[in-house]
């Protein structure tokens, strides 16, 4: 096809568009983006990688968006390298999103054991990593598909953790402790022991916390865990003060 013919067909497509409908669709997209931003939790569903502006969509967030849209995902490994002699493993995965059996869109993701994150010696040997990189490729494909289907590319970005991995090694610098998204075991144990100030029966403490503070310690985020600990500490201090006033302590 010549260049003139190409631009003529592009114009044809634009000519056939109902502008009012486009405006309504764009408004719907904006509304959906707002809902997503409100619903997803920072640090759990998405996170901001230091040095970047846009938040990165994480797997839990991608799964929630799929649920919001009523979409199902199917995966296909489109490329695989499994070199057991050299210990090199690579996978490219395609994620197809569909609703009611109708394909909506697809995304792709790739991961391999030569990525910097997998070559540090803190990681196990490449043979143990084959499954990990397969899962990583699957996750990347899913996030890619979700960002496309939900028109969220201007809200979130793809896994920027990968970009951070591929930056050249820097001279010694001040590292920062990394933190997980969910309430840690240490936080959970600490909170349960603090609750022991009020509830002597260990087995009843999770429920006691849920009733008093409205926090499910098995499903809380790290930030909620920190807040819970601070609330418990404040209540213990107040309780001690009250007992002191009463002459009990």
């Amino acid at each position: 096809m010549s260049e003139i013919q190409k631009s003529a067909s592009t114009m044809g497509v634009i000519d056939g568009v109902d502008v009012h409908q486009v405006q309504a669709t764009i408004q719907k997209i904006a509304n959906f983006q707002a809902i997503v931003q409100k619903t997803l939790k920072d640090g759990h569903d998405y996170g901001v990688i230091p040095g970047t502006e846009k938040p990165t969509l994480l797997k839990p967030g991608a799964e929630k968006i799929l649920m919001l849209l009523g979409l199902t995902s199917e995966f296909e490994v489109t490329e695989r390298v499994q070199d057991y002699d050299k210990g090199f493993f690579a996978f490219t995965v395609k994620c197809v999103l569909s609703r009611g059996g109708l394909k909506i869109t697809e995304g792709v993701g790739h991961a391999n054991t030569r990525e910097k994150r997998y070559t540090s010696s803190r990681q196990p040997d490449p043979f143990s990593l084959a499954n990990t990189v397969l899962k990583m490729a699957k996750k990347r494909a899913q996030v890619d598909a979700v960002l496309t289907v939900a028109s969220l590319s201007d809200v979130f970005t793809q896994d920027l953790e990968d970009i951070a991995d591929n930056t050249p090694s820097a001279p010694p610098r001040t590292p920062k402790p990394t933190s997980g998204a969910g309430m840690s075991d240490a936080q959970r144990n600490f909170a349960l022991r603090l609750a022991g100030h009020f509830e002597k029966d260990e087995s009843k403490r999770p429920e006691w916390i849920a009733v008093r503070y409205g926090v499910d310690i098995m499903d809380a985020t790290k930030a909620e865990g920190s807040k819970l600990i601070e609330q418990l500490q404040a209540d213990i201090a107040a309780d001690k003060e009250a007992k002191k006033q009463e002459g009990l302590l």
Partner: protein
Amino acid sequence: MALSRFLVPVKDGKPDLPKTVKVVDVDLRGNVAEVVVDAKGAKYLRGRRYAREITLPRRHISVSQVNTYLRCPLQYFWRYEEGLKVPPSSAITFGTVTHRAIEHNYKHKVEAREDLPVPEIQEVWADEWDKRVPETQFEEGEKPGEVKDEGVRIAALYMKEVAPSVQPVIVEGEFDISLEGMDYTLKGIVDVVDEQSLIHDTKTSKRTPSEDSIQHDLQMTMYALGHRTLLGIEESGLRMDYLIRTKIPKTVSLAAPPRQQKDIDRLLKLVSYVARAIRDQLFYPNVHNFMCHPRSCGYWTICQERWK
């Protein structure tokens, strides 16, 4: 597959290695290369002393490793690279045993919310001491029995003057912090964290410490970092309880406010530099350290004989 790292010379832009050694990864650094080899290759290289092995514990670096390196890089080498252990002095054993006895009380108190009877803690102290006496190096004229009596008295003093004010929540809490951009973690154990997130440490000493000694204590900064990482909140403060081994023993408690972020940043920078120095095999004696003395350093003889 176990992987090991070696520093090898470079020839024509490639690591100069026997053909039998399979290289998994190479990092060229001028006229040397850091190579990663499998267990078979490592065995070959070790057996022939062909290359210098990089033995930094890449998986983690501990608070005590950092402290040892800062005290004396060569002492770190003997202790952690060569794996040489020297018998502890009686002062070290005294501190360890006191620590164990206090830990025994606090582990009980976490749930029971009351201290154990003083005689029980004294008994724990005495039993621990008896276990450790055979491996302890005593100074000339020092009598283990007398030191034991002193320890039992000091345990009672701690239980009377310090323990009642502490309601522990974490006792001997291990932390293992992943550091962004680093391929190892920082490991440590915080003695005690109480209900109000006050971090406690106990030390035994023959001299009364200076008032400000807690302000710049590196270990306490590491505990603060551990607390923040484990619990996601700032500690409420730091407290160091000294048991002073004077004729009439006494306790001295020093307190400090929470560490500032700049203290934590400085610590992390220090840890990363120590780790790099270890990786680059920089081991030398810290001759200006007051402990670089035959009476204070258990590695003195080895050091004089082997570091030439």
